[in-house]
């Protein structure tokens, strides 16, 4: 099915809704575009693969890189500065017990959700656990900006069934929402930088500051080359603005942007040791992962058949060969 086929709004073709003059026609065209963009049918197995990767990553993040969140349970409550959503929901400061409980609940919920049984319920449980975890992480005076995409991805998973009418269109909506949220992070990061610091951001010593504050393999080398770091800052902010093309469906432009995004995060990790993993991992929503699964299944089947034919060929060879003697040579089939 083509995108345009998928885009026809509710049984009416563009002609039917476009009959009311040019203004109506614009609206009809927008509706066609909107439906094609947000409800492009995508395989359920793609969302399954995305979900499994995200749940596995959340388990890893919760147990390892986010160990500092657990430490918040030991911080005096006077340091707790709940963000707005925590104040609305009246979420108290974590204790060592409650935060360990939430950590365990996230791991268990992710493990169950990976099975994709009751996908909406288990995804909703992960969503609730991860949201609480992040609220406790960010309610001590510092908010990171690498968690929005994964939270929205969990919300999309919690709202998307695996069966039912037009499930592929609903899958398309979920994957598109993850893609859009992922893509928006870059231009909005650039806009916030320009809004906060103007072009001084790119001309200043932001990378040097980040390198001094954090340990990174490449950063210690680059710190002695301020001009190179400034060039990197310009490239960084220009690319963040360019990354808006991730929103479009042109596969070539997208491929360039995806390679750029991976390069940007690899550079950031190498220089200052920040991976933005909860955000970065959501890039998997751009890949046809079901084809990877199909390819792996085919390869597995090919290897299996090859092994089987070898063993049957081997058996045939054995049957045709004269029996080996026990002295000196290899003993076959007697033990």
């Amino acid at each position, binding site marked *: 099915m083509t995108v345009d086929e998928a885009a026809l709004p509710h049984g009416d073709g563009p002609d039917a809704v476009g009959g009311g003059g040019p203004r109506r026609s614009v609206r009809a065209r927008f509706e066609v575009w909107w439906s094609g963009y*947000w409800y492009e049918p995508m395989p359920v197995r793609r969302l399954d693969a995305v979900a499994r990767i995200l749940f596995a990553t959340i388990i890893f993040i919760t147990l390892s890189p986010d160990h500092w969140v657990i430490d918040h349970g030991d911080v*005096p409550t006077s340091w707790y500065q709940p963000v707005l959503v925590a104040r609305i929901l009246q979420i108290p400061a974590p204790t060592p017990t409650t935060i360990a409980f939430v950590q365990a609940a996230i791991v268990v919920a992710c493990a169950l959700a990976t099975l994709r049984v009751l996908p909406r319920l288990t995804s909703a449980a992960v969503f609730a656990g991860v949201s609480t975890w992040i609220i406790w992480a960010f309610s001590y*005076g*510092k908010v990171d*900006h690498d968690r929005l995409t994964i939270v929205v991805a969990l919300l999309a998973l919690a709202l998307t069934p695996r069966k039912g009418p037009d499930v592929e269109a609903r899958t398309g909506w979920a994957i598109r929402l993850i893609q859009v949220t992922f893509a928006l992070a870059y231009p909005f990061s650039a806009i*916030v930088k320009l809004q*906060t610091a103007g072009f*001084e951001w790119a001309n200043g010593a932001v990378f040097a500051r980040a390198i001094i504050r954090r340990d990174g393999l490449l950063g210690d080398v680059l710190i002695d080359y301020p001009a190179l770091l400034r060039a990197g800052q310009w490239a960084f902010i220009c690319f963040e603005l360019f990354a808006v093309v991730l929103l479009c469906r042109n596969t070539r432009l997208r491929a360039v942007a995806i390679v750029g995004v991976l390069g940007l995060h690899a550079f950031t990790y190498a220089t200052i040791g920040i991976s933005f993993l909860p955000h970065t991992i959501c890039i998997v929503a751009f890949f046809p992962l079901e084809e990877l699964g199909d390819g792996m299944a085919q390869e597995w089947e090919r290897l299996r058949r090859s092994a089987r034919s070898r063993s049957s060929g081997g058996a045939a060879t054995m049957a045709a060969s004269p029996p080996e003697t026990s002295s000196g040579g290899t003993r076959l089939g007697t033990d």
Partner: protein
Amino acid sequence: MAVGTVRIPGRRARTVTAVTVIVLTAVGSLWGTDDLWPFAPFRMYASASRLDGRVLKAEFVGQTATGHRFTVKPGWVGLRPAEVEGQLPLTRPRRLPPGLLEDLARSWNRTHNRQIVRFELHLKGHRLKGGRPVEPLDVLVETWEGAPR
């Protein structure tokens, strides 16, 4: 089957959800504050750093009754350096809200054998010249003094 020929269940709710996420992300980024998480602005390393400025990072120093002084990394008291800095006001005098340093010192004494009678918040780092670190810096922000546990 064409998507449009059959009504997609929950289509309106899905459309509203998508539009809401996009609008809140945009509004939060352009006019929001960190308080609005998850729709807070993408502000990590968004502020400018002057080429001839300073780069500082929060760190604590503890002192025992015998006068022994030792560094206490923020992580050892459950905090990230940026969280300590985030509680400092942007305007002078840059001091923590009343009681925070004392609470941290008393928490340390409750959970460690090495008792402290003095707890200091420092901002340590480097002075930059032309974007290159040239001189180490150590700024004492504030001090707590009190009895051990």
